C-alpha cells in the first residue's frame, strides 16, 4: 500500500473540521449555560475553554440562527465602554436542547473512548 493511501493528511483535516463544526452549536449553548454573554465574550470563552477556534464572521450569523430557532434570547445592555452590547442567554428551549445534546455527547464519547482504548494503548 502506498504511503499516501495509508495516511492522507487532507482527509484527516477535513474530518477534524467536520468534527468541530458538529460541536459548535453545543459549545455555544454550553458557554451560555450559566451566564449572559455578548458575542466577543462567547468567542473568548470558546477559545479559552475548548479547542474550537471560530472565525468572528461566523459567530454572529450563527447566534442569529440560534435566536431565530428560539434557542437563545437577546437583550441590549449599556456598557461602561459607552456603547450598548447585545447579550445572549439561553431560553427554556435552548436549555432543553443543551441538556439533550449533552446527553447524546456523553453517551457517544464514552462509547467511543471504550472503542478507542486499545488504540490509545498501542500509541
Amino acid at each position: 500500500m502506498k504511503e499516501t493511501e495509508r495516511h492522507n493528511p487532507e482527509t484527516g483535516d477535513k474530518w477534524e473540521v467536520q468534527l468541530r463544526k458538529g460541536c459548535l452549536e453545543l459549545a455555544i449553548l454550553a458557554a451560555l449555560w450559566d451566564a449572559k454573554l455578548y458575542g466577543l465574550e462567547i468567542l473568548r470563552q470558546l477559545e479559552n475553554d475548548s479547542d474550537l477556534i471560530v472565525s468572528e464572521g461566523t459567530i454572529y450569523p450563527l447566534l442569529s440562527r440560534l435566536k431565530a430557532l428560539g434557542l437563545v434570547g437577546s437583550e441590549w445592555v449599556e456598557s461602561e465602554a459607552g456603547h450598548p452590547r447585545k447579550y445572549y442567554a439561553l431560553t427554556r428551549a435552548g436549555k432543553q436542547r443543551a441538556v439533550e445534546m449533552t446527553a447524546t455527547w456523553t453517551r457517544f464519547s464514552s462509547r467511543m473512548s471504550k472503542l478507542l482504548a486499545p488504540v490509545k494503548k498501542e500509541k
Partner: protein
Amino acid sequence: MVSSTDEQQQKIEGYLAKLRGGLRGMNEHEVHEIMQELRAHIVDKTVVGGGATTFTVDSTLDALGSPEALANQYLTVALLSRAEINRSPLRIMQGLFRWASLSIAGLLVMAASIVGYVLGGALMLSALLKLIHPRAAGLWAYPTSTGDLELSLRMGFGGPPIGARDVFGWWILPIGLLTGCGLVALTTRFALWCARRYRQSRVLP
C-alpha cells in the same frame, strides 16, 4: 487634513455601509440590530488592541471577513432558519430565491424545488378539477404523429386531444392527491436538507 483616527473611522464606516448594502431584503429592525452589534464588536476589539490604529482596525475587519460574505451568511441563515421553522412551500421558496441570488448551489436547489412544487401542485390541482371537469381533467395518453405515446396532465380547460385515453379515470383523485402531496413534502425535505448542508459548510472557514 484627515487624521489617522478619522481615516480608521472612515474605514469602519465603509465596511459597515457595504454590509448594510448586502443585507437588502432583511427587515429594517434586524438590519439595525446587526449593524449595532457589529459596530460594538469592532469598537471593543480595537479598544482591546490599544485603540483605532491601522493595525487594529485592519485586523478586526479582516477577522470578520469581507462585508459581502458576512452579509450572505446573515441572509442565508435568517431565511433558511425561518423556512425550517415554518415549512410552508411559500416560505421555503422565498428563502431559496434569496439563496439562489447568492450562489450557484442555491440556484440549482431552487430550480429543482420549482420543478418539484409545480409538478406536485399540478397533480393535486388536476385531481381536484376532475370533480368539476370529469371529461377533460386528469392524466391523458394520446398517440403522436410519429406513433409514440405522449402523456398530458390536463386541468380540464379545453377538451382532451383527439384519440386520447384517460389513464386513471376517477382514480386520478386519490392518486393525484397522494402523489402530489408526497412530491411537495419530498421537495420540502430536499430543499431543507440542501439548505442545512450548505449552512453547515459555511459554519467554519
